[in-house]
């Protein structure tokens, strides 16, 4: 029951803050709503027994991504122009709603067999074991490392002035 309550609160919160990100006049407010949204998503992970992911969510999204974004906002000094919306509002709205309808329709029409699920917490070791085992994702992990390297080099090259 508590799970249900938590879900609804978190769900409303995440959707609400996501909408707020979009409709906020002030770009800083948008960033803040985004952080709240990330928190809500972290909470949702918890309701899904993925505590480890929730932790990473907080660390990566709030600790890194959000900060980056705020840096971006400040570096570009666009805050004074607010956060206006473009001309494509109506078509975008239609597309978004139709797509949402299609997605929800598809999801609900699918015959989900294991609707109940397990309440057992996922152990971090299991995740680590799968990532770092030879039968798991150790290569992927290495690729992700290369990707970060590429991102770092790219970011440096792009931002550094000659």
């Amino acid at each position, binding site marked *: 029951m508590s799970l249900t309550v938590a879900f609804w609160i978190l769900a409303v919160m995440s959707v609400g803050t996501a909408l707020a990100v979009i409709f906020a006049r002030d770009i800083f407010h948008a960033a803040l709503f985004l952080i709240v949204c990330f928190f809500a998503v972290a909470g949702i992970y918890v309701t899904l027994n993925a505590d480890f992911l929730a932790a990473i969510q907080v660390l990566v999204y709030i600790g890194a991504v959000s900060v980056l974004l705020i840096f971006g906002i400040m570096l570009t000094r666009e805050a004074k122009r607010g956060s206006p919306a*473009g001309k*494509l509002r109506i*078509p975008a709205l239609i*597309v978004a709603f139709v*797509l949402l309808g*299609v997605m929800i329709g598809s999801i609900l029409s699918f015959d989900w067999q294991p609707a109940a699920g397990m309440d057992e917490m996922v152990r971090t070791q299991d995740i680590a074991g799968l990532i770092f085992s030879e039968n798991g994702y150790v290569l992927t992990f290495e690729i992700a490392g290369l990707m970060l390297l590429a991102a770092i080099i790219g970011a440096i090259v792009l931002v550094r002035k000659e």
Partner: protein
Amino acid sequence: MADIPEFAVWLIFLIPVFSAALIAVVIRPFFNNKAQFAGYITITSIGVSLLLSLWTLYSVLGSPHHELEFHAHQWVVIGSTQVSLGIMVDSLTATMLLVVSLCSLMVQIYSQGYMHGDPGYARYYAAMSLFTGSMLGLVLAGNLIQLYVFWELVGLCSYLLIGFWFHRPSAAAAAKKAFLVTRLGDFGLLAAILYLYFKTGTVDIGELHYLAVTGAIAASALTLAAIGIFAGAVGKSAQFPLHVWLPDAMEGPTPVSALIHSATMVSAGVFLVARMFPIFIGSETALTVVASIGAFTAIFAASMALVATDIKRVLAYCTISQLGYMMLGLGAAGLVAVEEGHVTLELAKAVTAVGIFHLVTHAFAKAMLFLGSGSVNHATGTFDMRLMGGLRKHLPWTYLTFLIGSVCMAGVWPLACFWSKDEILVKAFEMGDARMILFYLGMITAFMTAFYMFRAVFLTFHGAYRGGAHGEAHGKNDHGHGEVHLHESPKVMLIPLLLLMVLAITAGLANVTGWFDRFFGGHHVYAWSHLHEALWNPEVLRHSHYIPLISFVVALLAIDLASAIYNSRWISAEAIGRMFRSFYKVFYRKYWFDELYEQVIIVRVLVNGVFRICQVFDTYVVDGLVNGVAGGTMLAGRVIRKAETGRLQTYALVMFLGILIIIGLVYWIT
């Protein structure tokens, strides 16, 4: 003397053709300064042809059925189709060979004088050689394809010769007109050849003759084929309604006109009908058409000759008219033969004697008349009779020959044309019934012929001289004969004239005894003999036996009338002209046929009508569609690229829209 071997017959037309090639390829390019050799070569080669023709005639006379048998030579093989080369020599061929080579020889000799000094001398003789050679080849052709080949070559040569002075717009136009009008007729001949080949699988003339008279070809098919062949003859022989080219054809040098009007070009049509007569005789319709067109053309052309002021034009209309006679003769003789009953191949060939005999006599007379008119021109520098007069004093020999020619043409006893023309009138009369109208037309034409011929004689040679070429009627380039000297022509021009005169006087005698008819395989006795006989035995007398007499009288009346108007001037020509002003105008304007053809049909209806519509359609519809599709594609490109706004959010939206469309499509299709 032995029978002529086959190769010698081939040589009859090959020698002139080779001489043409020799002049064109060797003399003209490399020895143009010795152009006189071109004349000698031509005269020699045609002379040889004449000798060989005589030999041929001799051999034909000596052979059974008056026919020499030669086998065809295989030429081209395509699959199951074989085309052969062969020659056909019978009495018709032999006659034509003689007439053609003789007339041509006379004309070539005459040209030595007439064309002397012309810059195109060699070219002239090359074309003349080829012209003669083609005509001889046409006469000898053993199958229709061969015949068609020479038929077209004759047309080509007439084109080259009529347009000999190509720098004169009128000559260039006349040459083109001649070729095109005859080609229209050729289309009919071509269609007939295709049709006959389709029906019988052969183009061999001998085989076709046989198949036609044995009934192997249906009568309706014969009618179609005969009409097609006749269309070709109508074009070449300038019959109504394709007569328009011949009067203009006088734009060529006068000797050319002489040749065209006598033995080569126009007689080819008559020859063709005679050659294919077994096909015509199988179809009464076709024969009626031939006779009717002939009779109508005869009077139709004569009417225009009445008012022509150009001496060559008078002669030209006269030619058309006489060709009409020949057609009438062929058609009428055929119809009479059909009425008399069973038609055999021999009979079918024999009845052509009537038309061909007139062809022969007319050829000599007409060649002489044209050469005479050339002689007149040589002296006066013009062809306009209004500018002549009184020339008999200055050109006595020319006057003599021209007079004899006219008398002959008018059908006065005992000159050549009298005999042949009367035979035609007799046949026309014998047809009876409604076809009698053709006879009356012929008789009226006889009157008109005598009248206009003597009108020409009187205007040209009698009265007082009216000034020659001061009117610049033909411009300064006129023949290179601009200098007026009222002198008789040189001997080289007179001798052929005199030779032809002899023939024009005597040629008719060939049939006085019916010899010519028999030569063609017939058994008729000439009407004049009947009359002669009937005078002593009145009980055998028939109406038709009076006809020669009547026509003789008619001719004399016409000559008197012409004399009254143009010589003694008892009657004013102007007054008559005023009296029949509307007729005069119609005749003088040639029934507006030139205008109808050139301005209405060709220019208005075709070139600026149908053809223009085609062109507009091509430019704006066919090509417009192509350019429209291309332009549409480009335009589409330019429009669609507008969607590439440069704004990344449009792009993102398109992505999602695309996803939705794909999903929609998947469901829509299933």
